């Protein structure tokens, strides 16, 4: 029988720009970090194409995952000894925190949309399938990997455990806001995490915040709001994302049409066929994807090569705020008339196409809000107590942009069509 995992003889530490140090005392966590599936996260950027807008945003899902683990570890220390907290869940929560993003693919947002795959399913498969991660987790018991997968999928019976990793104020969000602010170089993503951690309290249904910490939470909500508009919804990043998703669509379409690529599609073939295995998936990372994009710059297909050159050399699409639907249909016709395929060169992108959310109290039983614990034991939803949060909750949260290659429009031969297009786009 395998030796059960305990504590390391000496604590290990990782230097981290956001939390200063990440402390590892448990043998289980140390071994999980060393697995090939977890190491792969070094090769998947946390913010996808954002580095084309904010050049510092090259940080990986590896460093974010360590950050989420570290925040959760600190919360465990704060909860230790409290009535509602069961310390026997500690390693389960820490493992789930560390592995919550392990199934993310390269440029995962566009990737998942185009290929219809779900990183959460791959996370579960990596945790419960024939992998190094699974072999380590099983040392804690045969059902331990399934418990970890259930926590990440939010289907674990202990709601408090789930809420630490996934709720409106969880370790995941707190780390990515701080980390993304740090690496993008913006000054508005910061908030007082030490204060928030100190006022977190465990309850049966999840974490609540002592009302004395409300102002620190307000700051967190403000940071989240500003990061969404200034970083996550940035129109230039979205332009890169639009081009990336069109590249994947085009390559897939060409493959399905029997087009013969100059180079073998070893890493993409099962993906295009819709039967990608776990092993194939684990082998994909952003280095592999960009290798293909480099090669495809020289493909015979003009659309694919043009899109790849745009992505690799940051020749992105221009954008305007969305015009009316009837105008978009008119533009579609004009693009076709000018020989520019609108499926690849006229793209509408909405905020709902992005994987980020704002804080919203919502309607009863829609999703769990942030709850404050008053001195008399009463629980109150945050926006009912905070004027600042209430003000933000009612703000516009949607945005639509229309993306197009302005220089190809300028180069159109038919002056009449060109002018009609410009009249609609720039009115």
């Amino acid at each position, binding site marked *: 029988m395998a030796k059960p995992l305990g504590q390391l003889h000496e604590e290990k530490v990782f230097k981290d720009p956001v939390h200063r140090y990440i402390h590892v005392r448990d043998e289980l966590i140390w071994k999980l970090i060393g697995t090939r599936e977890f190491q792969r996260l070094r090769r998947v950027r946390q913010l996808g194409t954002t580095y084309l807008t904010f050049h510092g945003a090259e940080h990986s899902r590896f460093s974010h995952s360590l950050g989420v683990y570290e925040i959760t570890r600190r919360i465990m220390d704060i909860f230790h000894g409290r009535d509602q907290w069961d310390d026997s869940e500690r390693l389960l929560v820490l493992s789930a925190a560390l592995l919550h993003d392990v199934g993310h693919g390269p440029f995962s947002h566009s990737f998942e949309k185009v290929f219809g795959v779900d990183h959460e399913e791959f996370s579960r498969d990596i945790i419960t399938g024939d992998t190094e991660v699974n072999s380590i987790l099983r040392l804690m018991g045969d059902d331990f990997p399934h418990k970890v997968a259930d926590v990440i*999928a939010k289907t674990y019976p202990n709601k408090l455990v789930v809420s630490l990793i996934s709720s409106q104020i969880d370790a995941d969000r707190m780390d990515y806001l701080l980390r993304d602010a740090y690496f993008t170089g913006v000054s508005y993503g910061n908030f007082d995490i030490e204060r928030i951690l100190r006022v977190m309290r465990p309850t049966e249904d999840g974490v609540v915040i002592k009302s004395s910490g409300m102002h620190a939470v307000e700051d967190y909500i403000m940071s989240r709001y500003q990061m969404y508009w200034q970083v996550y919804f940035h129109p230039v990043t979205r332009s890169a994302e639009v081009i990336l998703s069109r590249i994947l669509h085009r390559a897939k379409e060409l493959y399905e049409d029997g087009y013969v690529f100059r180079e073998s599609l070893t890493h993409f073939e099962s993906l295009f066929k819709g039967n990608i295995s776990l092993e194939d998936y684990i082998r994909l990372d952003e280095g592999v994807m960009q290798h293909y994009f480099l090669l495809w710059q020289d493909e015979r297909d003009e659309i694919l090569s043009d899109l790849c050159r745009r992505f690799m050399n940051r020749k992105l699409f221009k954008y305007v705020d969305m015009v009316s639907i009837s105008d978009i249909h008119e533009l579609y016709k004009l693009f076709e008339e000018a020989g520019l395929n*609108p499926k690849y060169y006229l793209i509408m992108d*909405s905020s*709902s196409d992005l994987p980020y959310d704002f804080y919203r109290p919502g309607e009863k039983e829609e999703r769990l809000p942030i709850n404050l614990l008053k001195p008399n034991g009463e629980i109150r939803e945050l926006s009912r107590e905070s004027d600042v949060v209430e003000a933000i909750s009612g703000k*516009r949260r949607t945005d639509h942009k229309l993306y197009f290659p302005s220089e190809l429009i300028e180069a159109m031969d038919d002056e009449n069509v060109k002018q009609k297009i410009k009249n609609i786009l720039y009115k």
Partner: protein
Amino acid sequence: MFDDHLKIMTMLKEAGEVVGRKKLQKMVFIAKKLSFPFQEKYQFHFYGPYSEELTLRIEELCNLGFLQEEKEKVSGYSQYRYMLNEEGDKMASSFGKEIPGLGQCVRSMNEQPSRFLELVSTIMYFDKLTKEQVIEKVHIVKAKLKYSDEEIQEAFSYIESLMQMKN
């Protein structure tokens, strides 16, 4: 282009009016599980499958002036009522594509209480498990709602009937 928005509009046109965000969330999820072409990404939340993407899309449709949202107070909480307005109706008729079989399923779901749709969607969320495992899972993740065995059986039968309706 705008296709996913139009699908939601088509659904609302078929439904006429949907009362409650939770209900709308579950209806789209169930329709997606029945293989109707909805693309919204769902995750399991405290109250069952939930899509932030759908929440935002609905908000976008309201902001674009195609969808009417009415807020009402029900026992201290806000409840929302959704229906296409005149513009939205025109839009759905002009540009929306018919989704065969959707109308009947949507109208049937719209007649069910939210509590029941929450159960149905939870069962469908765990569709990779065996029936016994699903029942066990429902009792674990929905312990507070205390679904009876009869309700669970009824939900399984309802899923069957939706599948037949679809075909």
